[in-house]
């Protein structure tokens, strides 16, 4: 499965869409994110790994301007999220972990509300809603109340929702957690096709290593608020495990870093 093969490295040459420099967030005396410096390039699928509570979600919130960094700075699509959060949010889609919907409305109504909040005129959005519903395979169920949706359908509706604004960059927080194997596969295929067909940069936060390995070009490993490694999986494997192996699994690499931390 050569998804993380050489073409991933060509893309690294592209323009940086996320630039974080010394990004730090502390809650009282507890350091959630410690001097994070990172660059993500246009078009890549980046896997952001780490155990629960490592500071992944906090990092995402800082990238979106939903929480102020204690120190350091970030540039998302060329804008500083703590200074111009609206500009960032116009260009960036964020799918939170276990995304919520208005359960008493149907899928189309939910999407229309979000479209209006993104200043998309109704004439444009009605077509676009059909298009994204078709893309995630929910066009048939569009008339059903979202309260009756299964977990996998809700997650796919979440993807449809963030696509409405035609984002350049997507932040996906644990998009496959709690999905059955079929749902997981559909979700991963969807994410890959968004990257390939729509050239959307994807920043995926997860701790499901095999899934990250299947779709990501590069990964970053975060442990206790520190970014301990960044790079393509092969490269990290060579560096960390040393041996010339045919194939490195992300799990081996991750566990090695985890034990050292």
């Amino acid at each position, binding site marked *: 499965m050569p998804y993380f093969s050489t073409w991933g490295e060509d893309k690294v040459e592209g323009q940086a869409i996320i630039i974080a420099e010394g990004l730090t967030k502390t809650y009282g005396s507890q350091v959630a994110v410690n001097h994070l410096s990172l660059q993500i390039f246009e078009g890549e699928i980046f896997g952001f790994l780490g155990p629960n509570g490592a500071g992944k979600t906090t990092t995402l919130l800082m990238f979106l301007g939903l929480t102020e960094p204690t120190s350091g700075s970030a540039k998302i699509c060329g804008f500083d999220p703590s200074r111009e959060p609206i500009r960032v949010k116009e260009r960036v889609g964020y799918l*939170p*972990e276990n995304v*919520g919907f208005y359960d008493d409305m149907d899928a189309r109504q939910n999407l229309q509300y979000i479209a209006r909040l993104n200043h998309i005129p109704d004439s444009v959005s009605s077509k676009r809603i059909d298009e994204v519903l078709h893309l995630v395979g929910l066009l048939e169920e569009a008339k059903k109340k979202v309260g009756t949706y299964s977990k996998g359908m809700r997650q796919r509706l979440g993807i449809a929702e963030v696509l409405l604004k035609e984002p350049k960059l997507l932040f996906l927080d644990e998009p496959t957690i709690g999905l059955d194997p079929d749902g997981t596969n559909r979700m991963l295929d969807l994410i890959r096709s968004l990257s390939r067909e729509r050239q959307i940069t994807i920043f995926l936060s997860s701790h499901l290593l095999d899934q990250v390995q299947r779709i990501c070009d590069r990964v970053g490993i975060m442990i206790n608020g520190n970014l301990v490694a960044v790079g393509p999986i092969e490269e990290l494997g060579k560096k960390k495990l040393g041996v010339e192996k045919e194939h490195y699994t992300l799990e081996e690499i991750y566990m090695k870093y985890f034990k050292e931390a």
Partner: protein
Amino acid sequence: MLRGILTIFRKEMEDHFSSTRFLLISALIVMVGVIIASMVGMGIQEELKGMAKPTLIFLLLFTATGKLFSFVQFIGFFGPLIGIILGFDSINRERVSRTLSKLVSQPIYRDSIINAKFLTGVVTIAIVLVAIVLIISGLGLRLIGVVPGSEEVLRLLIYLIISILYIALWLGISILFSVIFRSTATSALASLAVWIFFSFFVGLGAGVLADALAPIPQSGTQVDPEIILKHERVQRIASSFSPMTLYSEATNTILDPMRKTTRGLILMGPLERLSLTRFQNPLPLFQSMIIVLPHLISIIALTFLCFGICYYIFMRQEIRTV
């Protein structure tokens, strides 16, 4: 900026008018209002028989107590419930259903969310109150057959504005609790507790406080008027901490032109008494307004204070999904 508010406003409006509990409480209030007004109206009808030129009758529909209580008293007591029902879960419901984190990641200012929710509540309150007053007025027109004069209409209009502000205060209180508490049950109970405290116990407490600070001797024929006055003053100041007292004093005065003060007890000399009985004329609207102005300002200040605190806390809160 305005676009975001309008979008949320539109959705919240739809939510309110399709929510069962809001429709139930509105129906209840309309029903009780109509019952009170028709009872009062029939009473007035009886008394009007044979009167040649009745004046200032129309407003009696709202202020006359009839058998139980007047419409104005009823709104003073139960109006807050409308505000509480509209607001108690406005923020934490979105938090529980995890839609809040989604909402704040859209390109809108964060304060549009809370502004729109408050605005929707106020507009909904206004719609309900205007509807009730119109229904009662229509009923009254049929029952007593007296057309209100322009001054009476103006007085009703001011009454409506005070009532909207008063219920908006309770909306503010309940939205504040919905920002502070994560659970909708907690915020509902907290709002109800504040409502009961300020509506019932502050009045009782004011009496107790006045008795303690300026006890009126039970025995003895001659009671010093100074003591009665002091007792009254303590009670007034203490009970003015209750928005309900502020509201009922203000609305009673604005709707009843014969009332010349918001006070319950007036001490007066023989000459003043004479002048009062000899010149029993209604107070001009402008004078009534001057009398209730402090009350009105207090209610507005409380409403804004409440919303201000709410806004401040909401803007500083961390929005997390977990």
